[in-house]
């Protein structure tokens, strides 16, 4: 048994310790908002927060996250939509929507550390793949959030 802290709650899971966090979230705990895209940390669809940092959960063994605070897309807006989620609605960002939980988690983690990211900061931090090509709208939404945060 491993004890995990996910979205502010303690959860017990009985899985092999090398199981990637992604599959524990999706299959064991039913938190399917976090997506499987590549399995090799190349696309970012599985991005969650580990103690506030954006990480790619498809390559992190669950044994490595015990005792850390894990936040998934389900937890991000649990107490009202996060400003990133609001901006995503205002700018009508999602198309198929599959990569968006990961894109939103990466964006929220960036803003938490760097409330006024430059274009270069966005380029560096948001390396998630979106096959629908929502990148232009992601940038616009992020510029809006960053502007609002700066007053």
């Amino acid at each position, binding site marked *: 048994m491993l004890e995990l802290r996910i979205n502010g709650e303690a959860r017990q899971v009985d*899985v*092999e310790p090398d*199981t*990637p966090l992604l*599959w524990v979230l*999706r*299959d*064991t705990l*039913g*938190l*399917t*908002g*976090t*997506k*499987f*895209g*590549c*399995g*090799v940390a*190349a*696309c970012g*669809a599985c991005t969650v927060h580990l103690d506030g940092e954006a990480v790619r959960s498809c390559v992190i063994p669950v044994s490595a996250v015990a005792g850390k605070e894990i936040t*998934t*897309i*389900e937890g*991000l*807006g649990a107490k009202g*939509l996060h400003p990133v*989620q609001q901006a*995503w*609605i205002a700018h*009508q*960002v*999602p*198309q*198929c*929507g*599959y*990569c*968006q*939980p990961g894109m*939103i988690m990466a964006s929220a983690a960036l803003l938490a550390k760097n409330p006024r990211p430059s274009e270069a900061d*966005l*380029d*560096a931090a*948001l*390396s*998630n*793949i*979106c*096959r*629908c*090509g*929502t*990148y*232009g*709208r*992601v*940038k616009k939404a992020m510029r809006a959030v960053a502007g609002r945060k700066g007053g």
Partner: protein
Amino acid sequence: MSGPKNKSRRRFFIAVALVGGGLLVGYALRGRDRLARVPAFARGGKAFALNGWVKIGPDGTVTVAVPHQEMGQGITTALPMLVAEELDADWSTVRAEQAPVDKIYGNMVVLGDSLPFDPDDRGAFASALRWVAHKASETLGLMVTGGSTSVRDGWEPMRVAGASAREMLVAVAAKRWNTAPAECFTDAGYVLRRGSGEKLGYGELAAEAAQLEPPRKPKLKARADYKLIGTPAPRLDTPAKVDGSAQFGIDVRLPHMLYAAIRQCPVFGGALKAYDAAKLRGLPGFKAAVPVLGGVAVVADSWWRAKRALDQLEITWDEGPHAALDSGAIFAQYGRDLEHGKATTYAERGDAVGALAKAAKVVEAEYRVPFLAHATMEPMNCTARFGNGRCEVWAPNQSPTLVQWVASRAASVDFGSVTVHTTFLGGGFGRRAEMDYVVQAVTVAKAVPGTPVKLVWSREEDIRHDTYRPAAISKFRAALDGAGAPLAWWNRIVGPSVTRSFMDRLLPWGGMDYPPDKTNAEGADDLPYELANLRVEHVLSKTPVPVGFWRSVGHSYNAFFTECFLDELAAAAGKDPYQFRRGLLATHPRHLRVLATAAEKAGWGTTPAPGIGRGIALHASFRAIVAQVAEVSVTDKGEVRVQRVVCAVDCGTAINPDTIAAQMESGIVFGLTAALYGEITLDKGRIEQANFPDYRMLRLADMPEAETHIVESGAALGGIGEVGTPPIAPAVANAVFAATGKRVRSLPIRASELARG
């Protein structure tokens, strides 16, 4: 515009007769039945079905059945807008629901579009075949999303459904007020009584209205009266897509569900020979190994456990006859077929060959494109449950009707015993019109009766077992007169047939005689330019590589070929590429306006910033016209960066302008990924790429500034989901020429060929 030759016509009739006779007998659907209530839509929840497309709850919530599948293109917003417009619904109360499989929801335009004729060909033969296709569509009731047909398909029945429901609500209100329907009007979810201030919400009227017979010929609004159509209404699926609650196929969870991972034969044309599952017994959660279409699946109580067990499974493959095939051999075959293969003429005007023989100045070039994978973000997956003579399937798919057919075949039960649930699609792009993953999931489910199983492919399987955009080559010869005007245009394309490959996979008997595949020459045989002597041919060159519908299909390469060669012709004529195109569009005012809009908004004719090259391309597909101007910079090492794209589009009537802009941005990114990075290659019969590290995608850091300008022409509806993709590769390639003086004749664009010094 000439059609295919007589022999081909006969073959086409044979094909239609086979499809019509073999699959469709006994599925008659008369047009007037399209408003029928569909039980699977009507039941569930507390809403009242007014017809097969609209149900209204006591709280006034309007639920619209959407027969097309949402894969990002915004169809679960655009189609409800059509209903809501005629219903006078309050948009904030409108919801979309995936329509169940039923013939009333069949796509009535996609088969007609597949015919090998110009949409403007009004000749008797083309018209007759179009009629046959329409009748076949009615008979079939084939629900399919593809060919950018969804809005065109929904335009008539969904507006009629909304208007019919509105008349029913008005009838009930009029009866309650003891007045005539003419004394009532509707607005934002209410029926109002003229001159009285009285009003009744749709939710208060729905139960009684649902008892009425739907009017078959309701009065539709004049376009001038539209309040919703043409506005950027917010998408209905956005909230669920930002909070993680949107349900994709891969998210399906059922009680006692098992999971399956799959490995397919690495060589095309090979097969599973043997495997030894004995060693897997005792592994945590392992349940079974099951031979399936293309390979073997391992079932366990979690996907990760299934995958780990699969990794340990010793599999022996019969690699079949193609284990030595590589990309070089395929292109060498294309080269031979270009010179010696049997060409089918797709378009002919005047005497191109004769004019070329006499011409003083001839321009020649040969182009090529590679195979491409779809790489939808959501890997292929399907969940199935089999038992008690029934089969239930949950799948992100582009054709619920086909899912029902192939599931019934795989499960050996009749159509009616198969229930299909269509989830959101994490990307489609044509890949999810294929049915391989459905057959596999049903096969696995049969091995564990009564227990649902979710099959999920790894990304590696997804990249290596796709149905690829065909690799193709295209050769051009054109002649210019002394003033630089084109005298002749000859074009021969070589590649495999997507439609043939698809049908061979789909139809149980396979190998039937097919007509020429329209997709081979689409975008090359229907050029808008005035070219008096023109001949466009295609040579079918089959390969063992399965090919499929990839966003914009034949247009995806023919636009690159034709618009780059036209640019070469302009340069040879010493003319500006924009002005050169203008000069050939005198009889195509819509194309001219789209081209001019993109050029003007991009500042064509002004001097670009230092180091920037500007390129232009125009391409019509799926009854829409798109022009794009790209601005690129090229480093000394030959690396291309696309800085800005200006896009103009005429898709007839704009339903939701924000969706159109989003689809243009999407099409540009999809086409840019292919132009800059996309290449699937073979060695030893195997696909060499496996995952995103070696099948590169455009990312945010590579994203150009992109802007879209909608040119409203009021013409008949056109498509939007695919049409933004074709012009971007030639616009960028032409911009690279402007920046470097080097022609790009092969995709993807290679830095090594553009590096200086």
